[in-house]
């Protein structure tokens, strides 16, 4: 491991979080989140403009040389966490996390980064082709003579993004391609369980693309790592919100002449829930720090974070609905919004089972190489 892990955020990072929390609390209440669910694009362009102008979020992890803020993955993860806390639907994850993870890794000098940084364009990344294909070997989408042919599934913001990044097989192996023109490409929005995260099926029928770089297996793994870590931190935001809201509810809700918070069975469950929440937070924070510290075992840490946090999110969301009782199952109560986000995040970038297996693969490779676990 190159640098040391910081176990506490700096003063600046804490202030950044506070300002984000305040901003999103005011600008993105759940009433607004619900409105966005019914729109075609799924997000609020004006809010996104403010997130750019007032908070410079699009370029948070883009190098200063490219017009970004040049912050680390820790700061990006703080922003992800806060969008997860507020459940703000926005291009942030697809364009400022995923596309930036891809470009920073494969083509750090690509001019597209500058356009993302200033908020001029929003990008989406076309990666998966099947329901479980988090490896490049399964890619059948091909580029031949600058024309892409194939079908990509589960493309986050794929129907609304201005620019598409496409992983495709080519003569050299796997290449990263950029599609700017909307010709010979069909972008079909998919009906989703979680309307705060939009997905599309993108069909390329000879769409004109330019190459941005070739993708090595290690680079591809790093992209999975970076996205999983950012997603884990976003999920921690959602977990925190569910926990806060549920705890507050148990204090208010009266049954049998007493608040339900006074029932020992509820108290013990909240204690166990707190434990899960804080363990998840530790895993997600550690992983974000590991990126900026240049940790050698990033895959291990990323998979640890994604699986730990993902399980905690599902557990927290189930407990949150249960402890709210009937009201928690209604459409008009907000808990369901996070429950659905928990479900969609559970499988995004790989299930917990997949990530746990990946952890052990990492340890085996290290043990064969005579290395030691960090």
């Amino acid at each position, binding site marked *: 491991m190159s640098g040391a892990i910081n176990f506490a955020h700096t003063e600046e990072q804490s202030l950044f979080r506070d300002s984000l929390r305040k901003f999103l609390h005011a600008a993105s209440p759940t009433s607004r989140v619900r409105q966005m669910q019914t729109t075609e694009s799924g997000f609020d362009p004006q809010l996104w403009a403010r997130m750019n102008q007032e908070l410079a979020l699009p370029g948070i992890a883009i190098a200063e040389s490219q017009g970004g803020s040049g912050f680390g993955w820790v700061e990006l993860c703080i922003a992800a966490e806060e969008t997860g806390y507020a459940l703000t639907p926005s291009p942030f994850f697809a364009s400022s996390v995923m596309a930036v993870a891809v470009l920073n890794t494969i083509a750090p000098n690509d001019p597209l980064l500058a356009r993302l940084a200033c908020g001029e364009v929003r990008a989406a990344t076309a990666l998966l082709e099947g329901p479980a294909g988090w490896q490049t070997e399964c890619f059948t989408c091909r580029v031949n003579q600058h024309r892409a042919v194939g079908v990509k599934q589960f493309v986050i913001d794929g129907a609304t993004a201005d620019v598409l990044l496409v992983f495709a097989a080519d003569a050299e192996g796997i290449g990263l391609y950029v599609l700017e023109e909307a010709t010979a490409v069909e972008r079909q929005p998919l009906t989703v369980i979680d309307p705060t995260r939009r997905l599309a099926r993108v069909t390329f029928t000879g769409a004109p693309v330019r190459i941005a770089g070739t993708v090595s297996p290690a680079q591809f793994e790093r992209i999975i790592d970076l996205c999983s870590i950012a997603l884990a931190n976003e999920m921690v935001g959602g977990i925190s919100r569910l926990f806060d809201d549920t705890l507050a509810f148990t204090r208010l809700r*009266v049954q049998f002449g007493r608040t339900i918070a006074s029932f020992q069975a509820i108290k013990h469950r909240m204690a166990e829930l707190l434990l899960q929440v804080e363990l998840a937070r530790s895993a997600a924070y550690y992983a974000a720090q590991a990126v900026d510290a240049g940790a050698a075992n990033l895959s291990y840490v990323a998979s640890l974070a994604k699986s730990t946090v993902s399980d905690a999110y599902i557990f927290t969301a189930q407990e949150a609905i249960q402890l709210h009782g009937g009201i928690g199952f209604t459409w008009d109560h907000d808990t369901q919004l996070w429950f659905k986000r928990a479900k969609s995040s559970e499988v995004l970038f790989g299930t917990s089972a997949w990530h746990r297996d990946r952890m052990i693969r990492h340890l085996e490779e290290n043990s064969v190489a005579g290395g030691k676990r960090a």
Partner: protein
Amino acid sequence: MSELTAENVRQEVRAWLKANWDPNLSLVAWRNKLVDAGWGQPEWPTEWYGRGFSAELVRVIEQEFARIGAVSGAKSGIRLLAAATLLEHGTDDHKRKYLRRIITGEDTWCQLFSEPGSGSDLAGSTTRADLQGDNWIINGQKVWTTSAHHADWGLLLARTDWDAPKHKGLTFFVIDMHQPGVVVQPLKQMNGHASFNQVFMTDAVVARENLVSKIGNGWAVAMTTLAHERRRADGLRSGAADVDRQAIVRGSIHEEEARENATVMAPYTWYPQRAGRVDLALPQALATGRVGDPVVRQELAKLLSLASAAEWTARRARATQQAGKAQGPEGSLGKLVASHVARQAQKVHTLIADMNSMLSGSDGPENGIIAEILVSVPAVSIAGGTDEIQRNIIAERVLDMPKEPRFDEGPFRDIPRN
């Protein structure tokens, strides 16, 4: 009159059906015949349209009706709970006025018990009923009311005495749902369905004679309704009838009955998904090839084991009962185990579908059924008594552990509430 054996009853109903059954009668006309002959609700007392038959004899009649496809009295929905309640606690006037139209299906009913502030604590009802002249004036809000949007009558639990202890200040009424003071709004659930309603009562009127319980004795009456509800839930799996396909002649009455059933069943279309659809797990695992994944195999086996053990536990309970022995603890566990099964099913379906579990509607696996499972399962551990209440009941009633200390004694007025 001949002796009341199963065989005699079978001969009698068979003969009567041969003489009377006409699939082209209107539903109401036919059922009025049933009422007059006592075949509509044969378990009801003879003085109220029935024959006072045992469950065993009723089954004989059901078999004979099913054998030739004859339509029976209206059985589904809340109406039978209303009838059971009225038979036990209603006045003769109530019985005369309501029971026949329950069998004929002309009236539908709903149950106005739950409130936003009293979920697990049903007796904490704060809907108020105040006597003004010859009428009770009702103000308050009810929730989780199945079928309220088409109900003609409601079974209403409301508070008439705020100085009495919680359980002693409630009174039980029948309320006319067709009045301006009653507004019914659908309540949408997180899975998109709206199976329940909210019912807002603002100066709604209940005539004095529609009092069912004595004043202040409403809780006991509501308990009768709920006991029948539980019994129905337990008894739903009865043996299938031996159907005589050749004898079945279908007529216009069956279309009428199908419409009636569709209305009654509409709120329940997602219930199989709420229970987790264990039946889909293995076929999905095989069809997608995910059965080859070791984690899927483990979780699938856990699910199938849990579901089988749950079913066998229920069958043990029934076998013990049928053998005339005291039922062991196994009889009280069905509700709680259903939550475990459903949650494990949700896990398995997610594992099998992987990224496809993000998709719903026609884009989702099984045309959206899998997605509906994922967003419906949370209801199973809440509806009809939360898991927490179930655990209390099991601990206190089955295991005889001490009851929770009470904080809701004394005048209701002084008890903390929402």
